[in-house]
């Protein structure tokens, strides 16, 4: 796969605060790439530098083989962005929001009409075209945001926390649309998020903390390196307790269950073979991205988010 975004030793400070501190990473063409971190970790700053909205202090950024210092206009033509806070014009209709932005990418006249038909069908926007933005629900607005970012058929779609504040159903719908587009057009998706389940779906994840990369790899790699599987025993009896004591396993009580951290599923299978009578009501849960994040940053994602 070709490198579509290359970032090397990127630095950016705001006065004494190092927002991005010497980070390097590569995004491949057609990849679903996730940037994971709490608010203030440096995710949006990096995106703003990649799109040329913010100047960098140091380092090198190449998008689609082009350096951002010289070829910003060509880079921008191939990038679609969905911002954390919608930038749609709330006083304009959905149609006007699409029309005025599309024109800046050369979509006018028949070319615009043709693409409008495609995109409104894909995002189920036909019935919303005449409505002012102010009259749409949060989920509908997000769909318009994404449709507008994809209108000019970019190679890269940058999503800056696109589903923050959306209900689970809408989040699911938004992701269906994005993944569908990614598959059809080999679109590179660059996502920043603090939702673990979204990052877990990515091909490659970079975890940022205080402007630095603290971990990177595929979700499976990260889970293997920074998390562990857990065996849950529900309504445990003496047989379970004696097995855990015999094997010297640590456990914690969670409501009516015992959570036992274990190395992997192979170890669980051994336990099951050794003492099948202990396994009457149990569950094996694979390592999660939450554990990865907690182990890597020392911060709980939800608490960290709430604290900021």
């Amino acid at each position, binding site marked *: 796969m070709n490198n579509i975004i290359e970032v090397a030793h990127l630095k950016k400070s705001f006065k004494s605060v190092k927002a991005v501190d010497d980070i390097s990473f590569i995004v491949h063409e057609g990849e679903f790439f996730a940037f994971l971190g709490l608010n203030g970790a440096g995710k949006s700053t990096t995106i703003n530098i990649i799109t*040329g909205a913010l100047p960098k202090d140091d380092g090198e950024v190449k998008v689609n083989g082009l350096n951002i210092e010289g070829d910003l206009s060509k880079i921008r033509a191939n990038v679609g962005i969905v911002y954390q806070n919608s930038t749609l014009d709330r006083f304009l209709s959905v149609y006007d929001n699409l029309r005025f932005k599309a024109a800046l990418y050369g979509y006018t006249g028949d070319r615009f009409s043709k693409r409008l038909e495609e995109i409104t069908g894909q995002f189920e926007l036909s019935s919303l075209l005449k409505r002012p933005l102010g009259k749409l629900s949060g989920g509908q607005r997000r769909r318009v945001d994404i449709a507008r970012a994809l209108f000019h058929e970019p190679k890269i779609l940058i999503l800056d926390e696109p589903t923050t504040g959306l209900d689970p159903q809408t989040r699911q719908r938004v992701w269906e649309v994005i993944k569908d587009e990614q598959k059809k057009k080999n679109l590179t998706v660059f996502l920043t998020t603090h939702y673990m389940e979204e990052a877990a779906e990515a091909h490659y994840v970079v975890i940022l903390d205080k402007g630095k990369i603290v971990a990177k790899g595929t979700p499976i790699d990260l889970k293997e390196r920074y998390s562990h599987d857990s065996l849950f025993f529900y309504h445990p009896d003496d047989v379970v307790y004696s097995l855990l004591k015999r094997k010297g396993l640590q456990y914690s009580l969670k409501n009516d269950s015992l959570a036992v951290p274990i190395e992997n599923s192979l170890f669980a299978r051994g336990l099951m073979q050794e003492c099948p009578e202990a396994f009457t009501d149990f569950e094996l849960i694979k390592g999660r991205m939450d554990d990865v994040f907690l182990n890597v940053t020392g911060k709980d994602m939800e608490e960290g988010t709430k604290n900021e």
Partner: protein
Amino acid sequence: MNKKAWTDFVYLTKRDIKVFYNDRPSFLASLISPFILVLLYVTFLKNVYDDSLLSVLSHFGIDSLPMTLINGFSGGWLMSSIMATTCVTLTFCGNTIVVADKLSGASNDIQAAPVSRNVIYLAYFACNFISTILVALIALILGFGYLAFVGWFLSFLDVFMILLTTILLTLFGSFLASIIMSFLHSQGSITTWSIIVSSVYGFLCGAYMPISSFSNGLANLIYCLPGTYATMALRHYFCHGALEAIETNIAGDIGTEKASAAIVAIQGGFDIQITAFGNKITLQFAFLILGLAIIFMLIAYSLIVFLQGRSAEFKRGKSAKA
């Protein structure tokens, strides 16, 4: 401007204008200044103008005038005041979109597209000018309607020159607002500036009160501001037809010489003819000042946009060279 830049400019300008007119609160706020002036006129200013006019004439032995002449003059004076303030104060309301875009993130979104920064700012300027001139023209049409109803004394040339002055003054106001707004980044600062300009500009251009009613120091300051000369030009074209009719009307009673002297006195007292720093200001000079002010502001605004763009590019490229 190449084809791509021209298309970008047209679409951005349309977008900016549509956002401005669909933003009802901002649009209605822009009409407050002329509305207040009309309200003041209806409640008491008209009587003040009428009394002042008759007071000047009484020194020349004239106690009364036909109402059509009085209404034509005071209506013209009101309209010149409205247009002198509206063309400038409206531009500040029309330009709030620049700061609103910065605050909403729309500005970042637009700049993330392959569009020149100069084109974006040119479109903001065009939107400001067009949206202001449209409202100003509506005000002008309503004003002409009012004058036609109470007393019409304008020639075709007067109407043409009023239109020309309105366009030039709007151009001046658009540049002034664009320059000031390019340094503002918060809703609070826009509101503060809009309030300051809306409330103070009318006084500073001599639209609310004749300059002779101010102290010498303040009057000298007002003479240094280009808006004053545009106000004088508007007063001239709105009122000189009525004044000519008044002169003809009173000449029969007091003779042509005294009638001419009475008109000169009215022109002086009502800022239709101003004398700045001991010099009688001609209409040509008033337009020269206005034209020079527009050129100066065009250069200043272009420089600001250019330098702000260069500053961003310099910061972006600094590390590449290091």
